């Protein structure tokens, strides 16, 4: 950093002495031939005292004039960073007598504080030019500790101007205890070294001159992830009774609660169970999905469908969450399947057609790791043949199983060696048997003990290494970046979204969203109308029915009424008749009584009167 107060007079001696040497050392024939011209120009510059103080523009202008020709243009940004000195290559190069003579002439310039400045800047300029033209090396240095001076010295040592370091150091040392000067030297040197890059590059590699501290970044990241916890979802596909649950128990060294499935399932269904595991400070939310009833049906055509639907459903759930407007992805419990363990039955011959079909359907949706289950039923030589047969069948049918990553040096080796053993032949067991003097997970047979964690017996250890200890993160990444992205792309294209429309104007999700939303709303409205109309119609019908019923009722009522009245009349008529009869009877009775009384009063006349009366009454 140029500051106007820095005095470098004591250094100018060294500087100017090596000026000529430097010019010679630039190793460009053009520069050498034009060296006298440059020096002349310098002299002009110095003598005229052009470009008053250290103005960046001023300095560049002066030097532009001088440096025209071979050392063509330099990026203007550099002018600011021109250091007042970079002596170099003192003791090595032999200065041409003329140059040195000139240099000596140039040396004692009293009171011209800017002279050495500009000379020095010029020197630095040429030096940088030469370096750049020669092909600058990548500056991305590891930061060492320590102050800039030593760093600069170290850097310079690595460059072509190797001797310059010593000279520089020498010069710096010779500056002595003048602290600002030393600082200026060191700073300037470092600057000249570190900044000298054309500014038209996008990314600049910067060299650090001290410990900044961001090497703790991976730790920060890991701490954050640890506090959040991890998620891992495994799908186990295989026939009933092939040992899926046992293998899971063995893999994770625990007993997951489950009942063995029956063979009577009408179709394939998937059962997902989640568990929380904790090891030291790592929390893992493990989800194990089982295919219940796989391979049990008589007609296995549609066995793969529930599995594919389940996987798609998890992708869909994540996609929905991602597309929401107000979403919370960091809190989202990721249920996408990260690894699919495909259990191959140990027939010893080849893959079953069901296996092939299912794996073919699943390979673009999930990372498939095929394993041979119940491997203790296959002899060693048969196993080898079986494995190669399976792999060749998979390859010939174009099934893409999960490839263990080999691009990272730390894991490439182990992954490469393990891939050779695919598919892993595993044995699972949760029971412990005493072997030697310790307990180990094993299966005890009358003819021997199959140890689960013995690499000679089965590939369980390899599976655990690959699945959990080496590639868990890669499995998750593959799921997210490859399978999920593929699903997302297909789904969005299906829904009608595009990235660019035929006019090659970039579409946006938002626009299509709006269009879809309007369409959907329109549909909704139409449906609403329909329903309303139907409702109205139904109401009308019901009304009509009710009216009919009402009418009928009325009629019935009228009829009843009429009959009632008729009856009533009849009854009244009868009543009248009865009354008449009663009246008549009473009259008769009265008359008879009268007659009887009269007959009793006149006995004599009775007979006649009676007879008369009788005649009279009878007539």
């Amino acid at each position, binding site marked *: 950093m140029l500051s106007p107060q820095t005095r470098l007079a004591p250094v100018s001696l060294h500087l100017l002495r090596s000026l000529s040497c430097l010019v010679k050392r630039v190793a460009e024939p053009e520069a050498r031939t034009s060296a006298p011209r440059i020096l002349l120009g310098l002299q002009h510059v110095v003598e005229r005292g052009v470009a008053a103080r250290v*103005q960046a523009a001023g300095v560049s202008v002066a030097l532009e004039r001088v440096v025209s020709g071979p050392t063509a243009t330099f990026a203007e940004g550099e002018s600011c960073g021109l250091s007042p000195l970079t002596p170099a290559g003192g003791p090595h190069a032999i200065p041409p007598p003329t140059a040195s003579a000139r240099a000596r002439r140039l040396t004692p310039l009293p009171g011209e504080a800017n002279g050495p400045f500009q000379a020095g800047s010029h020197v630095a300029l040429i030096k940088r030019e030469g370096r750049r033209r020669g092909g600058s090396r990548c500056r991305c240095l590891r930061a060492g500790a320590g102050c800039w001076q030593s760093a600069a010295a170290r850097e310079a040592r690595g460059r072509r101007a190797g001797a310059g370091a010593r000279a520089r150091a020498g010069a710096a040392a010779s500056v002595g205890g003048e602290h600002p000067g030393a600082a200026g030297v060191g700073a300037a040197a470092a600057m000249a070294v*570190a900044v000298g890059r054309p500014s038209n590059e996008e990314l600049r590699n910067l060299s650090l001159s001290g410990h*900044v501290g961001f090497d*703790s970044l991976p730790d920060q990241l890991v701490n954050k992830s640890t506090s959040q916890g991890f998620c891992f979802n495994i799908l186990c596909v295989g026939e009933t009774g092939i040992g899926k649950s046992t293998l899971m128990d063995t893999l994770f*060294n625990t007993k997951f609660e489950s009942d063995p499935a029956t063979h009577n399932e009408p179709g394939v269904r998937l059962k997902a169970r989640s568990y929380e595991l904790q090891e030291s400070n790592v929390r893992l*939310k493990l989800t194990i999905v089982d295919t219940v009833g796989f391979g049990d049906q008589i007609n296995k055509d549609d066995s793969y469908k529930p599995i594919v639907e389940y996987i798609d459903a998890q992708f869909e759930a994540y996609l929905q969450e991602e597309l929401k407007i107000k979403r919370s992805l960091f809190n989202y419990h990721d249920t996408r399947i990260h690894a699919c363990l495909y259990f191959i039955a140990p027939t010893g011959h080849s893959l079953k057609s069901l296996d092939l079909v299912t794996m073919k359907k699943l390979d673009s949706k999930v990372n498939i790791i095929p394993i041979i289950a119940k491997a203790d039923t296959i002899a060693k030589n048969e196993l080898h043949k079986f494995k190669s047969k399976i792999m060749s069948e998979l390859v010939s049918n174009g099934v893409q199983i999960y490839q263990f990553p080999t691009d990272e040096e730390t894991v490439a080796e182990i992954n490469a060696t393990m891939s050779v053993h695919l598919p892993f032949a595993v044995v699972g067991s949760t029971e412990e048997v005493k072997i030697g003097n310790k307990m180990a997970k094993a299966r005890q047979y009358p003819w021997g003990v199959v140890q689960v964690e013995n690499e000679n017996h089965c590939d369980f250890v390899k599976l655990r290494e690959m699945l*959990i200890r080496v590639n868990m993160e890669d499995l998750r990444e593959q799921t997210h970046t490859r399978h999920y992205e593929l699903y997302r792309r297909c789904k969005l294209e299906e829904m009608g979204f595009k990235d660019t429309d035929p006019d090659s104007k970039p579409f946006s999700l938002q626009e299509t969203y709006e269009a879809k939303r309007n369409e959907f709303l329109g549909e909704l409205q139409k449906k609403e109308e329909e329903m309303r109309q139907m409702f109205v119609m139904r109401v009308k019908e019901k009304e009509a029915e009710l009216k009919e019923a009402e009418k009928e009722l009325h009629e019935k009522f009228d009829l009843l009424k009429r009959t009632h009245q008729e009856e009533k009349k009849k009854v009244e008529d009868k009543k009248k008749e009865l009354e008449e009869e009663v009246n008549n009877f009473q009259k008769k009775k009265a008359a008879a009584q009268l007659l009887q009384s009269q007959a009793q009063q006149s006995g004599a006349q009775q007979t006649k009167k009676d007879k008369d009366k009788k005649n009279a009454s009878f007539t």
Partner: protein
Amino acid sequence: MDPLRQSASPCSSRPSSPKTPPCEMLGYVGIEAVLDQLKIKAMKMGFEFNIMVVGQSGLGKSTMLNTLFKSKVWKCTLPGLAMPTPQTLQLKSVTHVIEEKGVKLKLTVTDTPGFGDQINNDKCWNPILGYINEQYERYLQEEILITRQRHIPDTRVHCCVYFVPPTGHCLRPLDIEFLQRLCRTVNVVPVIARADSLTLEEREAFRRRIQHNLRTHCIEVYPQKCFDEDINDRILNSKIRDRIPFAVVGADRQHLVNGRCVLGRKTKWGIIEVENMAHCEFPLLRDLLIRSHLQDLKDITHNVHYENYRVCRLNESHVLPHGPCWVNLAPTPPGPSVAPGPSKACTQAREDSDDN
């Protein structure tokens, strides 16, 4: 009454529900190896960090950046005498790749020369807000593509360091206005610049007054209180919050003090050592920004600020002003004039959604 957050902290641990019973493992499985896998992956991919410095000219922003990252991030800290002072606020960005012990960091620094330099500084924060929103927009456009990249380049501003001039009194109206607007969009860390012009007592008093001002105007600077996850975080962050704003001095020159080489400013009355806690609080700032909270800054930017922007954008796309490279979405409906700044629209939207 927090306009930023309505639900749990963005980085909180996932709760264990009754559906996921904890299981005891009877032996070593090797799950913790996933941490190493993570680390390897992170180192391979490299990290990105974008920092923005805002403040009036002459407060030492470029020097501070150089001091923070111990390298010449900005080549020219003194403006050339021939260059005129910028008439409007310009934003200059430069990207560097720095590496330390195998960790690669792609650092992008954005400087804002001309901020607060004019006579009339009204709406001088608009270009800055526009720039920040433009980065969010870029990320959003990448994210909603159908075929998107494996790793979306992250140019969003993770941290904005605001330089408060050392007047010694309190925050100026310009500071308050700017901070109010910016705290909703980006993580802001205010610092007292050029603190070597204040004595220790003056510094403390100034700091208290600034804190009081921030509280009065409800300005939430980083580390925000509402994002503390657990008790440890809260304790740690309260200590930091107590010292905000840091009184910093920037220097990129080395001097010899007692035989040691230190970064500092040499004056006639002494050498101010930048990394000496007794002299200034630069180490605190450096630790906060780089050594302990860098990942947290990025997380909060991604989980909170970016999500807020996304919500606004997807809801009210026609109200936000258009930048030079923004996709022209639905045509602006003929209606009342749009709100002046994107943040205002966002706040309106947020308040609307709050009310709903």
